[in-house]
């Protein structure tokens, strides 16, 4: 049968084209436009070429110094919370019950922190940690620890990290639990017969079967923590000094505080680019790991890497660009 040729069919693509143009392409191009110019208000713009980008990557300038310092803090923060949340999530998943009503209870309790809005989480911890009225802050001080997240940088860091661990470890635990549940009972029985110790079972069966969901967990947690804004902003406001100022907080300061649209736009683009690159690396690693496993697909847990999960962080950034 011949295919019907009808060029009017192109009109069917038009709605999608328009939606994408207005929702993604135009705002992004506006940001690109700003990043090449400088303004002193009054809607007057001056051409600056790649000047902002040069400054951004040069630590000796004010912009570059602030950007690279906040980037360093952000990467350090992501590494720390990954190093805590991933092993902790695995341990929680391993110690959860496999059947009975306690499963449902555990799942609900674990899911609770995930359902709380970012702002509220920040407020909870802001109050919780206050030395004068906060339960944790007051108790710590009463016990003789000199804890004050407003004046002490280390205390501020500890608070922000503990808050993130409290908020997001559940996600890792739930993903790991799903991975664990998909392991057939025969594997455990075989390991019993082979005389495997608890540690050997973990190393030989549970960890290898979990590595896919773990990869997804690491990706999601890295992205989210790399883009973190609300919670530290509510708790510490980026302080004391600049000690908890992450890239997104710095970006908002430049864009809204100083109204430096050109600098903020350039920073947005670089920020976006870093996230896209990390996404791409993770996605490539994940698909390669998937291809390796295709052969043994019949006995594998049915957790497929979703392409969308790799791209998810980008739309989440959009509001911040719109601001610039």
């Amino acid at each position: 049968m011949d295919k019907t040729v009808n060029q009017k069919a192109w009109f069917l693509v038009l709605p999608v084209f328009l939606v994408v143009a207005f929702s993604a392409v135009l705002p992004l191009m506006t940001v690109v436009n700003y990043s090449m110019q400088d303004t002193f208000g009054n809607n007057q713009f001056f051409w600056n070429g790649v000047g902002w980008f040069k400054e951004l990557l040069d630590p000796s300038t004010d912009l570059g110094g602030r950007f690279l310092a906040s980037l360093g803090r952000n990467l350090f923060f992501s590494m720390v919370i990954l190093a805590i949340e991933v092993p902790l999530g695995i341990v929680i998943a391993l110690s959860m019950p496999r059947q009975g009503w306690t499963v449902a209870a555990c799942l609900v309790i674990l899911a609770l922190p995930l359902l709380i809005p970012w702002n509220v989480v920040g407020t909870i911890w802001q109050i919780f940690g206050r030395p004068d009225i906060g339960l944790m802050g007051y108790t710590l001080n009463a016990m003789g620890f000199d804890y004050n997240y407003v004046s002490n940088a280390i205390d501020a860091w500890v608070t922000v990290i503990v808050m993130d661990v409290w908020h997001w470890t559940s996600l890792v635990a739930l993903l790991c639990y799903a991975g664990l549940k998909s392991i057939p009972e025969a594997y455990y029985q075989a390991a019993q017969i082979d005389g495997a110790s608890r540690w050997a079972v973990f190393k030989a069966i549970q960890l290898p079967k979990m590595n896919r969901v773990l990869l997804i967990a690491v990706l999601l947690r890295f992205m989210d923590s790399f883009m973190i804004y609300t919670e530290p902003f509510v708790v510490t406001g980026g302080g004391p000094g600049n000690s908890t100022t992450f890239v997104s907080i710095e970006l908002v300061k430049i864009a809204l505080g100083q109204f430096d649209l050109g600098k903020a736009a350039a920073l947005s683009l670089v920020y976006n680019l870093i996230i896209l690159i990390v996404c791409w690396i993770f996605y490539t690693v994940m698909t390669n790991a998937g291809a390796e496993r295709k052969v043994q697909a019949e006995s594998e847990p049915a957790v497929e890497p979703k392409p969308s999960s790799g791209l998810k962080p980008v739309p989440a950034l959009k509001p911040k660009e719109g601001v610039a």
Partner: protein
Amino acid sequence: MARIDLVDLAHSYGGNDAPQETFALKPVTMTWRQGGAYALLGPSGCGKTTLLNVISGIITPSRGKILFDEVDITPLSTQKRNIAQVFQFPVIYDTMTVGQNLAFPLKNRGVPKAEIDKRVAEIGRLLDLEPYLNRKATRLTADAKQKISLGRGLVRSDVAAVLFDEPLTVIDPELKWQLRSKLKALHRELDLTMIYVTHDQTEALTFADTVVVMHDGRVVQSGTPAELFDKPAHTFVGYFIGSPGMNIIPAEVRGREARIDGHVIALNRAYDNLPAGAKIEIGVRPEFVDAVTPAPGLLTSKIERIDDLGRIRFARVRVGDAKLAARAPNGFTSSDGSAGLKFDPAHIHVYADSRLVEGAA
């Protein structure tokens, strides 16, 4: 190496207090001799896997004892019993090579490295896995993986028995046959007790020297394939073993005569002491019933169809409500759709409430 005794062994998933009718495994006492090849045969849900898991220690029985060489091992954990088990789906440790997979049970038991290498090489040779020893186990075919599962059991020199839980389910038919021959060869070579669970009678009859037939949580008969075929102890065995299964026909039996539909069939033995009120049936294998041209003195039946199995033909016939299969000799045709049935009296068995009754000579 051990003789395995099951003493009044029973298991219920609902606990010991559940009514006995609901037990997954009803009380059984039997002996598995050292070096025997056994098959546990029965349909799905008959309790065969439960029995296997009780022997391997994955399930603790509700009551009864298991003895290995007269030593009670019921309270021992799976690790402490010298048992190897191969599961329905191949269990492979993904991150390890084939050789590491085989070495795993020995490493867990702290065997010296030199000894491990020696055993792994030996088992690799025995199972034709030598070329793969250094390759990742995940990329292999299902039958190779199943061989690795088996190898992990065999690699231990202290293993008393190898248990198989429908190990060929995921294997291609052609390879099934090869793998089964391999198992037989291993059995001869290693002098191990092997217990093989299956619902496939061909698999059971070709693998085992003793077949244990289970039905509804009970062991209904255990014997050589020939015994099961010639003298089924239970109508279920007659029906389950053989293709087509045994003909089971309700009948009135008195002395040396069985009466079906008013027609009298002679029996070789006398049955005078049948339990009163029991459901009486006679059983005869289709191989010992001939469909012939109807004649006076023969039971007449209606032919429904004739199955041609290539080497042999079976007529599917009906007598009243009872359906039967009978051998249709070469050249047999029926003009009016009816056939006379000629029974071989030496192979007619009488069953009271489904159990075989021995007649007096």
